[in-house]
């Protein structure tokens, strides 16, 4: 392996030296062969001629040695690319149009997908977010409540003690606690949560019930509760203790089943338990997030449609350019086929140019996407608009789409009839 790598290095970077050495080696060989013949009594001129003839052509030997070199495909690739670039440079307007449309398609799409991915496809950063639901009461609320979607404490107790449907349940109540040290005190936002809070969220192990000396048992990353746009404040979590004076709280449930099917059962049970309680409603976490992001999602979906249109235009543009290029070169292709070029050779020749265009389009498109990502970032809440996976994914999809657009003209080029092609104008 090491010797092959060294050979590859030499073949790529010291080609001139290698060719000079090879030339000298072959000259030495010729002289040795003719010297041998002279010893047999042949005249020097004749000996040298014979030696050359025996060798079978110095140029052929040179070429066949070059053909066994490690990395000869690299040489060929470079030659092919150079040829393709020259051909495209002859049609600069069309190449520019093709690259431009591709860049636009790729750039717009990548940027749009980043947005769509963040506001539509990504789920909550907790364990099994699709299993989480929030319980709410519908109908008239009596008494005071803090925020929307809250239910009363007795209701929570009933649910907690009588429910056999959910795999887990917790509640939270936003509050303010006072922390004192020495003669100073400060108020910090806090959450009163039921003991299974951390476990249900999949964040930390269960908290111990409150004790006179509270002890830190876990650190919870910053969370957003009220609004996705908020900057999470420093927040302390305390186990909920009986006798705390609040009447309403948010209740979350976790279930392995489809939350939709549970809703009716839950409602029925609550009615049996007490016909006077308010109707219980369920909302999945994802629905709630969707509701709070509805504007962004609409924008993202619209952008995705425009991105799709941009791709379509880019693909059509590339098809047009390649079809035109192939048509202009009908005579050349016909002559190539008449000289023995295979269908696969012709297809490869056209596809090479397609891939050069796609490569240029990708480079330009990514610059565009990165610029757009800066714009999009202001629309995302603490999320990354430069997800490498998104970029690679959209590049692959678009390269495939553009590649198939170029394949049709390539196929057509390969079926040029060499008998009529020379007369093609």
């Amino acid at each position, binding site marked *: 392996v090491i010797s092959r790598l060294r050979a590859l290095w030499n073949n790529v970077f010291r080609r001139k030296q290698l060719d000079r050495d*090879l030339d000298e*080696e*072959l000259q030495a*060989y010729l002289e040795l062969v003719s010297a041998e013949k002279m010893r047999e009594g042949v005249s020097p001129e004749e000996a040298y001629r014979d030696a050359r003839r025996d*060798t*079978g052509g110095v140029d*052929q030997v040179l070429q*066949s040695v070059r053909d*066994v070199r490690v990395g000869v495909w690299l040489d060929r690739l470079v030659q092919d690319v150079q040829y393709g670039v020259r051909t495209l440079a002859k049609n600069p307007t069309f190449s520019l149009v093709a690259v431009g449309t591709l860049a636009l398609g790729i750039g717009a799409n990548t940027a749009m997908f980043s947005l769509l991915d963040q506001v539509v496809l990504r789920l909550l950063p907790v364990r099994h977010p699709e299993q989480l639901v929030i319980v709410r009461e519908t109908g008239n609320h009596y008494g005071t409540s803090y925020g929307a979607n809250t239910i009363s404490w007795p209701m929570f107790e009933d649910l907690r003690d009588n429910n056999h449907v959910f795999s887990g349940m917790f509640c939270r109540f936003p509050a303010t606690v006072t922390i004192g040290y020495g003669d100073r005190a400060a108020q910090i936002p806090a959450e009163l949560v039921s003991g299974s809070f951390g476990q249900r969220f999949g964040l930390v192990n269960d908290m111990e019930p409150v004790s006179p000396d509270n002890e830190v048992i876990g650190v919870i990353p910053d969370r957003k509760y009220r609004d996705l746009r908020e900057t999470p404040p420093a927040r302390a979590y305390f186990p909920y203790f009986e006798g705390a004076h609040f009447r309403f709280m948010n209740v979350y449930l976790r279930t392995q089943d489809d939350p939709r099917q549970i809703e009716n059962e839950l409602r029925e049970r609550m009615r049996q338990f007490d016909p006077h309680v308010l109707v219980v409603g369920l909302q999945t976490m994802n629905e709630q997030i969707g509701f709070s992001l509805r504007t962004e999602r609409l924008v993202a979906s619209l952008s995705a449609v425009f991105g799709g249109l941009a791709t379509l235009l880019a693909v059509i543009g590339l098809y047009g350019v390649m079809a035109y290029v192939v048509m202009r070169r009908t005579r050349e292709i016909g002559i190539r086929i008449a000289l023995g070029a295979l269908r696969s050779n012709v297809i490869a020749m056209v596809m090479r140019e397609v891939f050069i265009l796609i490569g240029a389009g990708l480079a330009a498109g990514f610059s565009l996407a990165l610029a757009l990502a800066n714009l999009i970032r202001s629309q995302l809440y603490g999320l990354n608009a430069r997800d490498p996976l998104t970029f690679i994914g959209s590049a692959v999809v678009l390269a495939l789409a553009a590649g198939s657009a170029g394949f049709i003209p390539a196929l057509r080029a390969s079926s040029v009839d060499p008998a009529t092609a020379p007369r093609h104008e």
Partner: protein
Amino acid sequence: MLAPQSVLLQGTLDLLVLKALTLQELHGMGISRRIAQITGGAFDVKAGSLFPALHRMEQAGWLTSFWGESETNRRAKFYALTKAGKKQLHTESERWERISLAMATALRTT
């Protein structure tokens, strides 16, 4: 003696080159002459197949080359076996012996 252009079996040339270099390092023509000698003149390896083989084997790490002086006092490229080349010669000889034995047995069967 075989016809001068006997077709070399795939892999045979490599084995012959390795074998030719076991005693001493040689330049291209020396290898060609040595092969003719050890095969009783059966194989006359031409430059067109010898040099590609030499370069391929050098890249594979079986041979190493250096510039030396030929009998005619000319700068010439000499080839020598490397450790990997000796190992290759060993495994290839064994393989070849198995094949030739099998072929001989097969051809003797009536």
